[in-house]
């Protein structure tokens, strides 16, 4: 089973990278782009076959390592193979 962990800076935490991407999009002529936030996606291949167990395990991993919850929030989705 695959677990997909999306890690984003929390709302209210300045994201200079997202801001720079937004400015570059403006330079390229894309209009109508509001706030841009940049984060990361971590894909885990898990031996666990039960979706809710897999999700709980990935959330535990996110809390302990994959995200720094002082500055980041995370979201886990699971995908059967």
């Amino acid at each position: 089973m695959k677990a997909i962990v999306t890690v984003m800076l929390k709302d209210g935490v300045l994201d200079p990278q997202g801001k720079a991407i937004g400015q570059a999009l403006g330079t390229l002529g894309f209009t109508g782009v509001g706030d841009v936030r940049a984060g990361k996606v971590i894909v885990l291949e898990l031996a666990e076959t039960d979706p809710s167990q897999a999700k709980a395990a990935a959330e535990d991993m996110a809390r302990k390592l994959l995200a720094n919850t002082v500055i980041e929030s995370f979201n886990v989705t699971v995908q059967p193979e």
Partner: protein
Amino acid sequence: MKTGIVIFPGINRERDMAIALKNSSGQDPRMIWHKETDLSGLDLVVLPGGFSFGDYLRCGAMAARSPVMAAIHAHAARGGYILGVCNGFQILTEAGLLPGALLRNASLRFLSMDCHLRVERNDTVFTNRYQAGSTFRAVMAHGDGNYFAEPETLDRLEKDGLVAFRYAAPSGDISPEANLNGSARSIAGIYSPNRRVLGLMPHPEDLVDPMMGGADGKPLFDAIAAAS
């Protein structure tokens, strides 16, 4: 004071730190590989600068989960001294030994330049050779030094006197211009509640001898060497 320096893969400032410690104390620090788990006999454990584990995931995230860290937590719990500089400060926050986090510099640029640090208090084992309110020159060399913490945490740090250093003009004035990496409330370094754990981004060990271009950082190492 018996000192030791922890080396993680990717750390590159351990020898400068060893020179600074020896320059003041005459003693060679013990060099500690990150897989070691026995820190007995040490009074001060130093986490030096560099790019531990290639800064993968987040700066200091991997190092903070290394085998040696359980011993470092125990060292802190028994009141041992810890100094974390640059990546070492990032590791201390990732390990939860100091609050907050270090974000990407507000300018998005890696900053390799001198800065001035204002000493917020001089009654600690690290700063008693400086005057409170005085500034000293230090070298910054980091991409992620923008100190962040929740407003309540910042208020608590200030109320409890746990801000060690702030980015300042040489005169001691705090301003957005002097706050080169955009840190919350110009914070460059903080203490643990017992003021025995210190983390800071700039490198005092870079200026400990006139031959290095200055000795502004030497009082910090002299103070450590003089502590019993």
